[in-house]
């Protein structure tokens, strides 16, 4: 299957909008093609050659008692089902009529049309199986157990509303990952790009195997406060919480965000600049949001100084009365979110960052990070995969996992260095950040994962 064309998707969305008797209607049509092979020491363990379509209909009805708004979705193109979906949306909206004021849907906008990479869309299973064979064989040469994923995915999305807004775009994502494990260690590496031809599969295999081998037989280490260099995957696991918890106009307005009463303050180190930009090729995304509003490039930390949150149309008052284009599909109980975070690169190599540490840790990944307290972004999580003790600027020994519990804002206030090489990195939960390695003056580790 191929993605819907621009014309197909917009035509279907226009047709439903035209048929809707609601005061305002917004229709989003999406098609996705996804192919993946997951693998372990036995070779491929799961796979899928799959596609889906999703049609979301958002309606608003105006009645003497007020306004009602609802969304209904269907995973089909069947006309009869879509008629039922529209009727269901109208019925739900009627039930929700209340004397609320709703911000009108947005009018026409100009949005550049992003395109899926043709090579990603066309990428088949032979190449994936070949890469899996190479990963399994390479790990096996060193007595390591492999586990990983090779996935290519592309999506087309059109949004049309009754105020004349029409936008269309495509995205694509290709990724390959390997966890190589020995009895006492593991190494992780991945490669992510919009265009599958930009992946460095063999480089990722070598990095994961190398980390697993070099981190074998780790020494136990006492919990405590350590100076750390966080590799991009470790940094991303923390920085994603600025998206999940902090920079939403909803949590800002409800005063549960760390930004509350702090916009404009120098909250973290001047070395730290963070922005959200769907056009940045290092972490690209949709050029319009869940309401069809163009996504703005927004500074979130400007040389350490906290900037206003991201918004959608309902929360635009937090951003000077305009939406910044960060809505999820509406109506939703979830607030706006930054989804394309990028950390501004510094000028240090990884070796230089590590070389500045007198005694501390180099951490390649943090796992299962979660929030204890949102106002200071107090987080906890564990070191996963390779980590090393650093003494006098050198990696002296692999160390066993530790759990940290610390405030992200506090830790970034003592940011001592930023790497020059930006990588796109994810974490256990949703989202990715384009970030270089970060050198923190301290991170508080509260227990050892090798026996508490």
């Amino acid at each position: 299957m191929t993605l819907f064309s621009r014309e197909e998707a917009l035509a279907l969305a226009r047709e439903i909008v035209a048929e809707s008797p609601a005061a305002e209607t917004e229709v989003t049509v999406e098609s996705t093609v996804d192919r993946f092979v997951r693998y372990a020491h036995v070779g491929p363990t799961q796979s899928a050659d799959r596609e889906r379509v999703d049609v979301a209909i958002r309606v608003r009805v105006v009645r003497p008692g007020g306004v009602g708004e609802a969304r209904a979705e269907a995973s089909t193109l069947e006309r009869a089902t879509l008629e039922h979906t529209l009727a269901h949306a109208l019925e739900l909206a009627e039930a929700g009529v209340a004397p609320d004021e709703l911000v009108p849907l947005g009018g026409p906008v100009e949005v550049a049309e992003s395109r899926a990479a043709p090579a990603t869309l066309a990428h088949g299973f032979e190449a994936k199986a070949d890469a899996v064979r190479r990963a399994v064989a390479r790990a096996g040469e060193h007595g390591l157990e492999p586990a990983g994923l090779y996935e290519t995915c592309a999506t087309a999305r059109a949004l049309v509303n009754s105020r004349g807004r029409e936008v269309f775009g495509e995205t694509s994502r290709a990724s390959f990952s390997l966890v190589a494990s020995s009895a006492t260690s593991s190494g992780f590496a991945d490669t992510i790009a919009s265009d599958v031809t930009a992946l460095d599969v063999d480089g990722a295999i070598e990095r994961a195997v190398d980390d697993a081998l070099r981190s074998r037989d780790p020494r136990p280490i006492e919990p405590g406060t350590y100076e750390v260099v966080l590799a991009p995957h470790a940094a991303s696991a923390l920085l994603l919480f600025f998206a999940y918890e902090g920079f939403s106009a909803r949590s800002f307005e409800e005063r549960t965000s760390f930004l509350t009463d702090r916009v404009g303050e120098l909250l973290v180190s001047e070395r730290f600049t963070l922005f959200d930009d769907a056009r940045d090729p290092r972490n690209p995304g949709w050029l319009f949001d869940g309401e069809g509003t163009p996504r703005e490039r927004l500074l979130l930390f400007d040389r350490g100084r906290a900037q206003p949150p991201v918004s959608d149309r309902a929360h635009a008052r937090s951003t000077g009365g305009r939406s910044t284009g960060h809505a999820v599909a509406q109506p939703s109980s979830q607030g706006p979110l930054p989804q394309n975070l990028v950390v501004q690169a510094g000028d240090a190599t990884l070796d230089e960052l590590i070389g500045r540490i007198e005694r501390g840790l180099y951490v390649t990944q943090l796992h299962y990070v979660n929030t204890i307290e949102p106002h200071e972004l107090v987080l906890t999580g564990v070191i996963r995969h390779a980590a090393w003790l650093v003494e006098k600027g050198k990696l002296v020994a692999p160390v066993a996992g530790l759990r940290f519990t610390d405030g992200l804002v506090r830790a970034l206030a003592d940011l001592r260095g930023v790497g020059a090489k930006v990588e796109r990195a994810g974490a256990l939960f949703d989202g990715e950040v384009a970030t270089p390695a970060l050198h923190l003056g301290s991170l508080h580790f509260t227990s050892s994962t090798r026996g508490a």
Partner: protein
Amino acid sequence: MERLAKAAIERGLALGASYVDARVERIASETLVVRNDRLNEVSAREEFGLAVRALVGGAFGFAAAPLSLDDAGAALALADRAVALARVLAPARTRPVELSEESAAVGEYRTPVAIDPFALRDAEKLEPLRAACAELGKRPEVSVREASFACRSRVQWFASSEGAAFHQELVRTGGGIAATAAASGEVATRSWPASFGGDHQPGGFERVLEFDLLGHAPRVRDEAVELCAAPPCEAGRRDLILASNLLMLVIHETVGHATELDRALGCEADLAGHSFATVDKRGSLLYGSPWVELVADSLAQGGLDTRGIDDEGVRSQRWPLVHAGRFVDFQSSREWASALEARKSHGGARAQSWYHPPIVRITNVSLEPGAWDLDALIADTADGIVCDGVKMWSIDEARRNFQFTAELGWEVRGGKRARLVRTPTFTGDTLDFWRACDAVCDASHFRMWGVTNCGKGNPIQEAEMSHGASPARFRGVRFLAG
């Protein structure tokens, strides 16, 4: 539906597959959220799709797409694609897939539903949410108040080339309330009956009525405000009495995931991790104290994973995971069961929807009740903390080192509830923790709690299950400063 599934199976066999199964699924869901007295989300979703899985040359191929009832050609095309994919992947297998021998399941299962949540007028579903939300707002310190409702129906037609033909209709309904107060420079959230969207139970709207959201709203509101002024939990080792609404998540993370067989065999290592509970430890590892009985049960009353069969046609069953404190068994699927001498699946292969291939998932896993009354247990505790409600959780990739934060803690001094404390955070090691369990309350305190967002797999999938527990005591648990 059955016709489409069988057409796909016959096609797969004709193309040379040694085994084929097909799932036709219709999934419907509805969500209502009232936030700060405003109807914040009203949404509904319907999906209808077909998944075909084919085993060729020792490898599985899987294909899935949305379905039209009159499009038998699409079903055949999916069989073609599943077989083609398996053929490509087979040479990359280092060991062929071996499926456990199972009898072909034929029959049907339906979740008992008293009040169909999809047939009920939306105004009737909104009324208790609006009333509870208004009650939560009766103190000015409450800055965010939310009441939510959600229901989901999953209708499956499963068939396999071994003769399985099963129809099941699974329905769950739930919701809850939460109040976030901002006072004294602190922010605190309290919820009922559970945090993060409430609790979800198999059945219909009768489940939401049983929650009595309005009746609990004044306590939830007041506790949120009181927590802002409460002292932070002090660091140190104390006895921990866990309410069942938090103990259920501890069971999920430290027992449910730890006993997934694919994880123990290293096949989940690329995402969620592995497990300390490896195959060689089965039957010998002391997992907990003698009072710890942990049972997996996909037949359990009140379980979100209570059903007729799993997503590869294995019938539901009940079996012990930890017996008298000793680790005795895993949760498994047909493929991974071949690693154990019994070579029988426990029926744990499930997929999020028609769009996803089945993987080993946690079923309903519960801590069997003990003999204690809760008041007697508190009276028997000299220095402890009662922890209630989930605020935060985190666990390492081997399922050993964990950290949980409760919504609320009550200090216990000299056998009596003393003061409220905020942000009680406890950390520990799975085995040390369960071995320190010295008391479990009796069946009168037992309750099942639903989990609707368990993440596993790569790409990640969500699954639903329940965990039952009575409150239990754990000696000498380490608390961090709140």
